[in-house]
């Protein structure tokens, strides 16, 4: 059955790409897949990217920009009329005027950016336009992609197993209680299903609020329902099933299984098909520092989650025919975001940590023939670099405005005072973090508010500073602009 639906999905996608191929010849489009778990900075990355291109800021490492070949970029009507627009202006206003980070994304948003540039290579020179399609979505939904190939029985078992880990036992206790009271072979009562699902949702929410919450546990719509709030497809929960006996019809287990399949068919698959199946370039944003802050267990969980997500993407060398029939991303960039939280002398170590985290995914992607790059970047640079001399000791620190409530070494901030923060030293060998050789409390990465921008006499504010965003762009879209 899943085999057939797989073929059907593939056929639908092929028809779509054939249609696209015609228009592709007239005006090339590039779908940029911005991938990242919740709170990894997808919205800020997209906002900053659009901001710099639309405002025409100099991006020295983006070759087309350095050579002055980008004439202008503007926002265009997006290709999918059903999908909400990415509220770019709102996000920029939040960053620049209110100095706060955009709120976490609750629903999908799409954006098309037309870049007008001068072609410098190839058989057609002169003015040309490249359309860049970017999709922003709640990071919670991303882990749903790992469900595509799972069946209900398997998923139930794994979710219950994972909730038994020592660090989670306390959080999961109420849910386990309600789980023990359920009888999978009992009648398919709607109220029972709803209560079970409620208890499961409470557990998921508690997990997300917990200390090691770097990756959320699927299903993502339970946390961020988007436009599906209250839908029946969201009323299911794992059950303790006996491994070998198939569930009889009209039992609770059968009902749950049906809903789980419905969730996959009506929520996960369309999400994947519409937004991820046809991406040409992919950037995977990883908030390494937050995971390091949370400890080795969180890092391991992040690694596992990233690996599961990336397994579902199709990467590999792209050719004309591959583009038509089985589109794949031929360049994947792994980016450690929030690099502005450490001094640039530590960026190499940050990058090494990132590489350790995505080592499995990197090997697989490279084996498939795609190009892989890594970079430590900050889409919006919230700090300045300083060196702090105290007595004989000099610390390489970053200065900015910590968010209200952040605490570093006994100091609690109110969101107004500026401070130079020395976050501790990242280990020279990235493995040390996983081995637990880094004592807890020796690293602390507080969140900073967006930078204060000088406003000129006309009331225009300056550009949002960034770190290596231009490099990332060169890797992702540079060859399309050559």
């Amino acid at each position, binding site marked *: 059955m899943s085999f057939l639906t797989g073929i059907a999905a593939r056929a639908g996608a092929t028809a779509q790409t054939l249609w696209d191929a015609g228009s592709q010849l007239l005006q090339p489009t590039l779908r940029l897949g911005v991938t990242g778990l919740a709170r990894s900075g997808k919205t800020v990355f997209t906002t900053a990217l659009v901001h710099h291109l639309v405002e025409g800021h100099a991006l020295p490492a983006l070759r087309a920009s350095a050579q002055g070949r980008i004439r202008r970029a503007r926002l265009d009507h997006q290709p999918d009329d059903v999908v909400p627009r990415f509220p770019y202006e709102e996000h920029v206003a939040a960053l620049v005027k209110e100095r706060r980070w955009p709120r976490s994304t609750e629903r999908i948003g799409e954006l098309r950016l037309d870049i007008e540039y001068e072609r410098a290579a190839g058989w057609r020179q002169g003015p040309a336009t490249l359309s860049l399609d970017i999709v922003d979505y709640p990071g919670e939904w991303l882990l749903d992609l790992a469900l595509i190939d799972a069946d209900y029985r398997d998923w139930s078992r794994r979710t219950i197993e994972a909730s038994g880990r020592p660090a989670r036992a306390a959080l999961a206790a109420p849910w386990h209680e309600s789980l023990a009271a359920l009888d999978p072979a009992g009648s398919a009562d709607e109220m029972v299903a709803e209560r079970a699902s409620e208890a499961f949702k409470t557990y998921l929410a508690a997990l997300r609020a917990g200390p090691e919450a770097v990756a959320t546990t699927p299903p993502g719509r339970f946390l961020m329902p988007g436009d599906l709030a209250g839908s029946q497809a969201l009323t299911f929960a794992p059950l303790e099933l006996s491994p070998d006996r198939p569930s009889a019809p009209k039992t609770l287990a059968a009902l749950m299984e049906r809903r789980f399949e419905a969730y996959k068919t009506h929520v996960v698959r369309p999400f994947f098909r519409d937004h991820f199946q046809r991406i040409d370039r992919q950037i995977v944003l990883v908030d390494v520092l937050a995971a390091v802050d949370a400890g080795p267990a969180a890092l391991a969980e992040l690694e596992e989650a990233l690996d599961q997500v990336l397994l579902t993407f199709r990467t590999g060398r792209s050719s004309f025919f591959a583009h038509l029939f089985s589109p794949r991303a031929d360049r994947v960039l792994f980016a450690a975001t929030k690099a502005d939280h450490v001094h640039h002398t530590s960026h190499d170590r940050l990058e090494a940590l990132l590489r350790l985290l995505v080592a499995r995914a990197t090997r697989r992607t*490279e084996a498939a023939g795609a190009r892989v790059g890594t970079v430590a970047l900050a889409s919006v640079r919230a700090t300045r670099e*300083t060196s*702090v001399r105290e007595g004989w000791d000099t*610390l390489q620190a970053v*200065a900015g405005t910590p968010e209200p409530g952040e605490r*570093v070494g006994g100091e609690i901030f109110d969101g107004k005072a500026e401070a*130079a923060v020395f976050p501790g030293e990242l280990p020279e060998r990235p493995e040390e973090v996983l081995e637990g050789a880094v004592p807890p409390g020796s690293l602390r990465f507080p969140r900073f508010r967006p930078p204060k921008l000088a406003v000129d006499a006309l009331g225009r504010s300056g550009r949002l500073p960034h770190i290596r965003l231009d490099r990332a762009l060169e890797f992702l879209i540079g060859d399309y602009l050559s």
Partner: protein
Amino acid sequence: MTRQPRAFRLDDPDVVTIRADEPAPERRGAVVVTEEPMEAIEAADGALVPLAPRRGLSWVGVLMSALGGLVTLALGLGLERLIVDLFVASPVLGWVALGLALVALVAFLAVVVREIAGMFRERRIEKLREAAIDAIAVKDHEAAKRVVRDLITLYGERTHTAAGRKRLTAWADEIIEADDRIALAERELVAPLDLAAKRAVAGAAKQVSVVTAISPRAIVDVAFVIFAAVRLLRRISMIYGGRPGLLGFLRLARAAFGHLAVTGGVAVGDSIVQQVLGLGLAARISAKLGEGVLNGLMTARFGLAAIAVCRPLPFLREEPPRLGDVAGELLTSAGAEAPGR
């Protein structure tokens, strides 16, 4: 000992904030926070010099090709007539002419093949340099590995690089940063060639300055300077693994002159004072000697430009040669006690 995370409030009266170019205040017990420039990160990453875009098809090129085709046709026609006429006059002569024409054709084809091979080799070296810059820009590890692999094949026939090649191959599967990997290849394979190239430039510069200092005629000077430049460019290209034919040579020469024009003849780190001083003193001793030094300096400049365009990697960790390295001797030997270098 690991240092614990710390925070210093900037509005704390005990914390003094200064800019990087200000002197530190002499206050005991105060914490001094020095603001570093925002561009430090870009500077640390090494700003990339964008390469000039390649030129496409030009109408002059089309014109030249068309005219060239016509001339070739005319030549072919003339040749054919000649052979036919010779056959009419005497079959023996005709056969001899035909044989000669065939020999000429074979030789011509050989020359063309060699030219094309040389061009491809130049192009390959150029591509290698671009790929290295790209790989370093985004830390693309696969690309870095590819660059090193290509470099090893490029120098595969040279025996003196055997040890370096072996070490690089052994490191191929190690986990090394992209730029470190390429820098290693630079040290193992390219650095010895840099030395040879520097020596070649220094030798040519010295030769030019001596010859032009003693030559009787200005025309001889000019001829010798051009001759030396041509020979130097070929030599440097050979050192770095190129085999330029005529066309490849012209390409290289254009690139080298372009490079000279871009750098304005003054390389980074050169003190112009030293040159003017050296030249001035030499010129004071003898006008002819001064001319010789000037010609030598020009040749050295050209040699540096040639190194920049022939080298298969950009200068990463190795110091790019400066004028003082290849022409320092020239300046001191010209009688000037150049201020300490």
